[in-house]
């Protein structure tokens, strides 16, 4: 009895040519994905292109080199950097403690790490602003040491650090979990001190993930808006971030200027995104042995 007869009266599915897929649903799933990505992600990008191409090159440069805007680049960049570096240290500490030690309340701390991810940025913004204001719990303590946080760039750093702490922790945690005890034991048995073992054995495996986490934190902080505007004070030339600049121009109905600045920001974000993906592709995969 031939196979096709055995298959019964139901129509036999034939392959179209030689390159067919074993699993079903390729057309449908790819179709939905491409449609969605084009409509939601790619199409809106064209709007920006159209708007900025409507400007002359001079107009474009004039807008993005406005002194107030340039000041906002500087503020945004250094605060994001400071926040990311702080998160690098804090995140590493947290990841280390969560992976390698047991203590009461560990589960709780692990859950709390994701809080900035789940909490709306505006809510983060008002609570940080309240805490660090002159009469807030933290603001009072810091004022005694002469440190002002609210309405200064330092407030921006705090807000950025708060919202992007999960990026570092969640990137470093899996790598720490994968470290084999055997490597450390071998080093210790050869007489190395803890500090040396950390430097020579542990850290080399960690640093790609740490850099990735810091880069993700940096990228996120560059674009942060809601958490910052309440605590920053938004003083022009002092504590204005670039995302706020875009917003300000929009409120002035200066769509062209807003688009120009936004295209700069977008370009930097996309470049960072692709760079991080390439980096992850090279370094993290090498570590995982794939």
């Amino acid at each position, binding site marked *: 009895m*031939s*196979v*096709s007869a*055995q*298959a*019964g*009266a*139901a129509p*036999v*599915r*034939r*392959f179209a040519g*030689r*390159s*067919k897929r*074993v699993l079903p649903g390729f057309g449908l799933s790819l179709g939905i994905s491409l449609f969605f990505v084009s409509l939601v992600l790619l199409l809106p990008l064209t709007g920006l292109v159209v708007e900025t191409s409507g400007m002359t090159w001079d107009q474009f440069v004039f807008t993005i080199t406005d002194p107030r805007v340039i000041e906002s680049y500087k503020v945004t960049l250094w605060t994001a950097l400071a926040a990311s570096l702080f998160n690098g240290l804090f995140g590493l500490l947290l990841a280390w403690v969560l992976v390698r030690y047991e203590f009461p309340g560990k589960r709780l701390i692990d859950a709390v790490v994701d809080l900035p991810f789940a909490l709306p940025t505006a809510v983060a913004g008002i609570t940080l602003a309240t805490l660090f204001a002159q009469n807030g719990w933290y603001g009072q303590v810091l004022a005694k040491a002469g440190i002002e946080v609210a309405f200064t760039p330092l407030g921006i750093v705090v807000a950025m650090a708060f919202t992007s702490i999960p990026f570092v922790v969640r990137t470093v945690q899996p790598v720490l979990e994968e470290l084999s005890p055997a490597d450390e034991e071998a080093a210790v048995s050869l007489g190395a001190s803890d500090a040396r073992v950390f430097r020579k054995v542990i850290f080399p495996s960690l640093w790609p993930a740490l850099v990735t986490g810091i880069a993700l934190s940096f990228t996120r902080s560059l674009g942060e808006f809601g958490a910052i505007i309440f605590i920053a004070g938004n003083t022009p030339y002092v504590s204005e971030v670039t995302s706020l600049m875009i917003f300000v121009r929009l409120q002035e109905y200066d769509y062209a200027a807003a688009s120009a600045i936004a295209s700069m920001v977008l370009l930097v974000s996309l470049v960072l995104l692709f760079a991080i993906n390439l980096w992850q592709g090279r370094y993290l995969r090498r570590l995982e042995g794939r």
Partner: protein
Amino acid sequence: MSITIDRIKKSFGKFQALNDVSLDIPEGKLTALLGPSGSGKTTLLRIIAGLESSDSGRVLFGGDDVSNLHVRDRNIGFVFQHYALFKHLTVAQNIAFGLESLPRRSRPSKQEINARVAKLLEMIQLPQLADRYPAQLSGGQKQRVALARALATKPRILLLDEPFGALDAKVRKDLRRWLRALHDEFHFTSIFVTHDQEEALELSDQVVVMSQGKVEQVNSPTGLYARPESRFVFDFLGHVNVLSGVVKGQSLVQGNARVALPGVVNNQEAQLYLRPHEVQLAKAPVAHARLPLRIEAISLIGSEVRIELAPEGWESNEIWEVGMSHGEFARHNPTRGELWYAIPAVGHLFAGDSAQPETVDWHSTAHASAANM
């Protein structure tokens, strides 16, 4: 249902997995695809199943070309190396899956399905596990369930991808015996892939040895073991002792080793392949062979004593291995460091570049020498 494989080619990017493979798989027999990793055996199995497509060539089931038929419609049973049991279905639901996936017209009733599942559970001797989940089973149990699941829809062809590879040695042996018994009772056409030559030789009716995308040899297990037809198959089927040298006069010579080869062309490079059981040890050389070797290690475990020796005054790439019965061992008491001589009874000569061996038989002379020991 016999299977014919007709000039199948398959490459993955630059890697040529299968290079013009043609095979006949007889109906109702258990065939092993044997080879090291990278030989293409799993790729071939998956192409037969329809889980991969070939670049060119055809696959025929009982004379019908199924090359363009989707795997779903080929009515085969496939057992995966890591079982691929559905984690969220019970054992009974796993086994029933194929039957429940049939189109309404051909689907049996619920009672019939349950009855068939119960029978299959009996057959794999696990009726008490019907409501367990795969995570609660041992490796051997999982594999039996995978087999029952594959057989539920009564396929005419059963394909198994390294079915026992992930199991412990003892479990493997038990399951091997059990699979063979099952096959003898039901006579499906089965093909299984393995890299374990012991498994292939023990289980199958026909062995297909593959290497680097090509078929090296097809034979029954005894035929394969008795008459390997290439260097690769020799090497693959267990240890082989090699004398590499040049033919001078009527002998193969290297260093101070010499073996007589009646009727061979002069001045060629040649290799003589000798299996451990084709060689005996003696305290002195004989007329047709002078192969001095020094004993390096003696292994007493097993049904035979295994003696490892290193060439003395000549060279070989690998150590030589010769077997000796426990009785002989007790009589002659060879010890480490002693010099002995190997006496070949049967050998396989690869002359020059030829890929086919010539069998050389010194039996008459060997018997005479043995009388000297």
